């Protein structure tokens, strides 16, 4: 097996030939996916994810930079000699062949002996739970079955690296829910170095070992999934990971040596002890600066106003969203007529949460808070990693 390394990769804007998808300029990209790891590349639509996969697969050529598989540059190799498997977003199954012959295609091209081919196809149909469907035509398969045939076809010739372009993108929400753990399990069993591309954080969270966050052709942050999720490096990454801004405003010193960040109409929140040094430094350095306190999506809890449990931010209930047996409440923060933003909090109070129009406080454990300085960099909290 093989690691995948991308070094100083650049590709300028191209309107894109038919089928190349929305191409985008890729800045200088550098990252590595370790041997046998499953990495997820997260980024909004049109940020250059598909272009990157096409470059790695050899379907497009970069302007500069290098792509290495197992330490060897593959830039000079045409796509059919790179040993890279790709599951297309639209699957691109061969409509004139049945499921088994689709899976067999790569083996045929690699001139595997007849007997081993049949064996391998049977084995893969079994692994991907497609037994008995081998003779079906592609248009006789369901969405989930097609998706698995595409996966089986891509891994059949034992590629050294597997690329997956929005592998669940063509499926409906219910099927996605079902298939995410299954995809995780299958990739784990294959043990192939894999790079999965998605705009949906849930795909990444449930399937990957490593997380790469991308925006507008640039890599914003990379690392093992838990550490990236818990420690976003910038405000932008934090927002892509679903972090909510609790308050944004100038820091003020409080009586007992504490530091408070105040936002008009929203509230005031104490800066936790481990972040005070950072906040004070930023405040004194630049006078009136704006600092932000962020919290990960699952850490905010709605509490009654005046209960003494709140962190100092109060919002107006806008919507109550049932979530299984519990509730999630959307709060508008700031001025009633022109709210600054909305956040979603969990309701754990039992019974029904207050109806729209009423006020609700927000509680959050201090360790869950992240401080964003004026430049947008997120301060590393001492207790990072225990979020959510």
């Amino acid at each position, binding site marked *: 097996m093989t690691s995948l390394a991308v070094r100083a990769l650049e590709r300028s804007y191209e309107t894109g030939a038919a089928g190349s998808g929305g191409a985008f300029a890729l800045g200088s990209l550098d990252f590595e996916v370790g041997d046998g790891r499953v990495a997820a590349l997260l980024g909004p639509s049109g940020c250059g994810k598909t272009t990157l996969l096409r470059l790695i697969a050899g379907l*497009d050529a970069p302007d500069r930079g290098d792509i290495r598989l197992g330490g060897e540059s593959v830039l000079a190799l045409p*796509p*059919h000699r790179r040993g890279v498997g*790709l599951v297309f977003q*639209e699957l*691109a199954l*061969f409509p004139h062949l049945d499921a088994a012959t689709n899976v067999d295609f*790569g083996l045929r*091209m690699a001139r595997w002996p007849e007997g081993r081919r049949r064996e391998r196809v049977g084995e893969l149909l079994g692994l991907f739970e497609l037994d008995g469907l081998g003779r079906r035509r592609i248009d006789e398969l369901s969405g989930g079955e097609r998706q698995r045939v595409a996966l089986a076809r891509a891994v059949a010739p034992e590629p050294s690296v597997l690329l997956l372009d929005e592998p669940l993108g063509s499926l409906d929400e219910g099927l996605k829910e079902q298939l995410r753990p299954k995809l995780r399990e299958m990739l784990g069993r294959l043990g192939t170095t894999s790079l999965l591309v998605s705009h949906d954080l849930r795909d990444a969270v449930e399937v990957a070992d490593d997380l790469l966050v991308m925006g507008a052709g640039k890599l914003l942050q990379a690392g093992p999934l838990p550490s990236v999720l818990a420690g976003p490096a910038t405000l932008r990454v934090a927002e892509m990971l679903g972090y909510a801004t609790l308050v944004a405003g100038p820091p003020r010193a409080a009586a007992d040596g504490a530091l408070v960040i105040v936002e008009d109409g929203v509230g005031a929140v104490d800066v936790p002890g481990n972040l005070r040094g950072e906040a004070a430094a930023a405040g004194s350095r630049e006078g009136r600066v704006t600092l932000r306190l962020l919290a990960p999506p699952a850490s905010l809890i709605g509490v009654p106003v005046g209960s003494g449990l709140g962190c100092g931010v109060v919002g107006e209930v806008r919507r109550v969203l049932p979530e299984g047996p519990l509730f999630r409440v959307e709060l508008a923060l700031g001025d009633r007529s022109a709210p600054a933003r909305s956040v979603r909090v969990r309701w754990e109070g039992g019974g029904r949460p207050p109806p729209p129009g009423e006020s609700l406080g927000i509680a959050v454990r201090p360790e869950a808070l992240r401080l964003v300085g004026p430049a947008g960099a997120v301060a590393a909290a001492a207790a990072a990693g225990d979020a959510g």
Partner: protein
Amino acid sequence: MKPGLRAGDGVWRVGLPAALALAVLIAWPLAAVLWRGVAPDGAPSWEAVLAVAGDRFYWERLGFTTAQALVSTVLALAVGLPGAALFALVRFPGRGLALALVTVPFVLPTLVVAVAFLQLAGPQGWLSDGLALVGLPRLDPRGTLWAILAAHVFFNVAIVVRLVSGVWANLDPRPEEAARLLGAGSLAVVRHVTLPALGPAVAAAAALVFLFTFTSFGVVLVLGGPGLDTLEVTIFRLAVRLVELPEAAILSLLQIGATLGALGAYAWLQRRIAAHRTQRPDRALPLAALSWRARSLAAGGGLLLALYLGAPLAALAWGSLSVGVDGPSLVHFERLFAETGRVSFIAPGDAVRWSLSFAAAATALAVVLGVTAAAAVARTPGRRGVLLDALLMLPLAVPAVVLGFGYLTTFDRGWYDLRGSAWLVLFAHTLVAYPFVLRATLAVRRSLDPRLREAARLLGAGPARAWRYVELPLMARGVLAGSVFAFAISLGEFGATSVLRRREFATLPIAVFDALGRPGGLGRALALSTILMLVTAASALLISRLRYREIGEF
């Protein structure tokens, strides 16, 4: 070179053989003829150009050619669009066969159609009989404009029906449903949603009909008369008197310019259709789901179309069977074969044999040429692709008779002296036929998802194997459809063959024309035309019934 699969990848590798073949088979002969036009005495002179520009006769020919082509186009649309609606929107029993039958007139040899109209509307024809019954004078279609127009529409209805109904049947019905929900009535939906979506297809069909009627030869040669010659017929008449070759060359240039314009428009429109194409299931409704009014409208329209397309052919077949008032007999056919031994007539058995041989060989060559040309066009992006497409369709623009004369003046010395050889006929047929393979192949190729080729590449197939195992099987249906057209076109080719003909390898259309020109030859012409019609229709229907799955599997 960068290894990426850019759109322009390998254009020259696949395009070069086709380009070479086209250069030798068309560019060179064409240049030779045109050179004779502008430089009759070896040095360029404006003499012929001025002679043509200063002569009102030629201006009238150009005006007539354009006017009749425009009128023919409008009429073909008027007849063809309702037909397209019928095939696109109504699912009736035998629809596939009916569509194949509607296509038959298009592939019929022009001479056969001319003879058929002569028979239907002639003084002794059914139409005249009908008019005589109600006390009106009998018709004579010879030398009349309406006969030419009727024959042109007869030919080209198939283009409109096939092209437009193909797009219409796959048109996404949801925008129409949305418009209806937004308060648009049936007519408003058609006007504001359906027609704009069909626009490129209708325009493409119109461009093609204009092209074919502008260059009409056989029909006009037989049905036309004084003042009713198209440019192509004028070129033929000038060129048979070899001294006026320079004028013929200038007129050819004129015609090539006009037809290239139509071809360019067609190529551009085709790209737009491909851009809007969705692979949606057939949206046609079964007859039972239609209202009583819609059903009777469909039935009435279908019947009229069938009558228009069927009557001339029925008249032709009936005419070949009738002698005087004694009822049907095979006398014409018997005579055909009985008089075979006489020198003055072309042996029908030989003509059938030569026609089929030329058609088979020309189709094989046309498939090779058309498929490679389609690959080159599909891989050339943007405007250059449109230009290349139009250029490769050049054989459609070049008057066939000019092509014939080009061959005679080019392949005339040394080891390539092919005058009087059957090779020249084969080359001419290949060139005239291959654009149909190119069109059909390109149509399916454009609807091919480029990711399929990429998927094959990533699964270890080199460019050649990706083409062989993925692209070719998926294109097979289009290639097959194109080759049917090529075969039929070769069977009916008349313009170039009439210049290159030799008695030893005369084809069926030549035999028909030969018989028409002899006193008392009409019966013979009718019999030969019927044979030609049957051979053409049979081969078209036979091959159109093949399904691609059977040959698409590997």
